[in-house]
């Protein structure tokens, strides 16, 4: 596990971690050290356990072995300081709720009671809540369509609104599960650049799960590649190489570099067929040749 030296307190620390679900070892011997303000992409084939790794960091799943610390405490203890974007949420056209209301739920969705009408006139908290929501929406550049029903927004617009929802609590860390999924190439680049901007400007630590590293290449600091039950960590140049990936998969895999700098992984074995209960939200195997 090569890595850039992390200065200061690590935001995420995972030591010799392994995870078992339904009697199957998803991954083992994973070490992960992420510094404050780093932008790390988590890559790997379907079923490699990328989403489940995020769920471990959020304290939603327990490790079978090893240690985990997030923001200086046990996993799950600091979740209010983490902005989380779960995988593949699409609001269909019949969802008649405004984007701004969805963003706002990221801030106050857990609170009991309902906001009173005209609360903004009497309560300082209501005013500051409204301010925070407006700021988050502006930060992702969604002000123009935040008042529209979210079901009528495009995939890219919905994704920006959901990132605003993850940002609205001013988190120290963003955990984004496939935020680029289902977006076209310009939107993928746009969202990747947006996330990097937030990471740099506010020192927010970012973990981002993706299928394809290419739209992220100009922006990420390091990548964690999960495959074959193991992980490799480092800069994209260190990790996405024929040797490293062949080692992870235990089968010959070739990494080609296209003239435009894009990386193409050839010969990636299909995700193993899984039986029994599956926890992850990843759906059936897809063509993994990119």
């Amino acid at each position, binding site marked *: 596990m090569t890595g850039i030296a992390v200065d200061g307190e690590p935001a995420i620390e995972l030591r010799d971690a392994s995870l078992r679900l339904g009697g199957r070892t998803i991954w083992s011997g994973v070490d992960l050290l992420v510094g404050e303000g780093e932008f790390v992409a988590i890559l790997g084939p379907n079923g490699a356990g990328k989403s489940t790794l995020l769920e471990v960091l*959020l304290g*939603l799943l327990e490790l079978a072995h090893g240690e985990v610390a997030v923001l200086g405490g046990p996993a799950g203890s600091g*979740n209010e300081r983490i902005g*989380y*974007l*779960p*995988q593949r*949420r699409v609001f269909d056209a019949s*969802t*008649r*709720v*405004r984007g701004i*209301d*969805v963003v706002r*739920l*990221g801030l*106050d*969705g*857990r*609170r*009991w*009671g*309902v*906001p009173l*009408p005209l609360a903004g006139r009497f309560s300082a908290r209501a005013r500051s809540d409204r301010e925070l929501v407006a700021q988050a929406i502006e930060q992702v550049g969604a002000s123009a369509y935040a008042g*529209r*029903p979210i079901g009528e927004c495009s995939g890219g617009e919905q994704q920006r609104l959901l990132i605003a*929802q993850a940002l609205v609590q001013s988190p120290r860390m963003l955990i984004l599960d496939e935020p680029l999924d289902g977006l076209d190439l310009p939107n993928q680049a746009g969202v990747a650049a947006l996330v990097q901007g937030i990471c740099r400007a506010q020192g927010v630590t970012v973990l981002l799960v993706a299928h394809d590293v290419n739209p992220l290449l100009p922006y990420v600091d390091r990548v964690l590649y999960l495959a074959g039950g193991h992980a490799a960590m480092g800069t994209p140049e260190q990790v996405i190489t024929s040797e490293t990936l062949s080692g992870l998969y235990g089968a010959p895999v070739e990494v080609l570099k296209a003239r435009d700098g894009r990386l193409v992984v050839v010969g990636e074995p299909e995700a193993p067929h899984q039986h029994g209960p599956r926890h992850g939200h990843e759906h059936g195997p897809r063509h993994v040749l990119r």
Partner: protein
Amino acid sequence: MNPHLTWNLAADVRQLVEYRFMVNALLAASVVAVMAAVVGWFMVLRRETFAGHTLSMMSFPGAAAAALMGLPLAAGYFAFCTAGALVIAGASGVGGRRAPAQESAVIGTVGALALALGFLLLSVYGGVLESLESLLFGSILGVTRGQVLTLAIVAVCVLSLLALAGRPLLFASIDEPLARARRVPVGSLSVAFLLMLGLAVAATAQITGVLLVFALLVAPAGIARELTPRIDAGLALSVLLGLVIAWVGLGLSYFTNYSPGFYVSTIALVLYAGARVARSV
């Protein structure tokens, strides 16, 4: 004196409230309309309309069972509807992750059973259970003060619960994966909401009849969401529409002597069609 509909609105209203039974009917309909509009708004948002429909069927065997046991009909409505809510919640695994296909299969089966059970209990009873028509399609005659009071108490309980749990329920309804990750009690909220839906349906069925609950439960919320995507405005509009539909429906029924259910559902349909047209232009 026979009531006549005139062009003088004040005179019409005066005629409407002339009789005690009509005042009771209007009060009961208002209480039920407000509760149904709010609960219905959440039901439409959560796409649980089918569950609401089936719960309304439960009030039919409920009424028959109460008659058989010599209990007040209202007790049967409430008992069967809340029991139905628990059955649907338990059998469709609402406590865990939502499984829509399984949920609708369970709901459909429960609904069929409810109707069959209703007819069975009715034939066992053999006596005169009001009339079957008024049970199914509603009647404005014979709403008592006690009934109005019961409905009001149920409405206050349901609406207070919704006011308390409104925001987390909204969160769980719109964005379940994130709500779950934020440790919102999604499963308990699902069960609690089905119970509230059961209570609201049982109350509404007593006024509109079992089969026409929907005019007050779905239509106001459906119209409101066509007209605005805002949450506060949607809820307010839904309540307003519910009241208008209930009052106008009861009023017309009073003056023409035909069933209120017909008017209530016709007005609901016309308003809904109007809202769809208004939105598309």
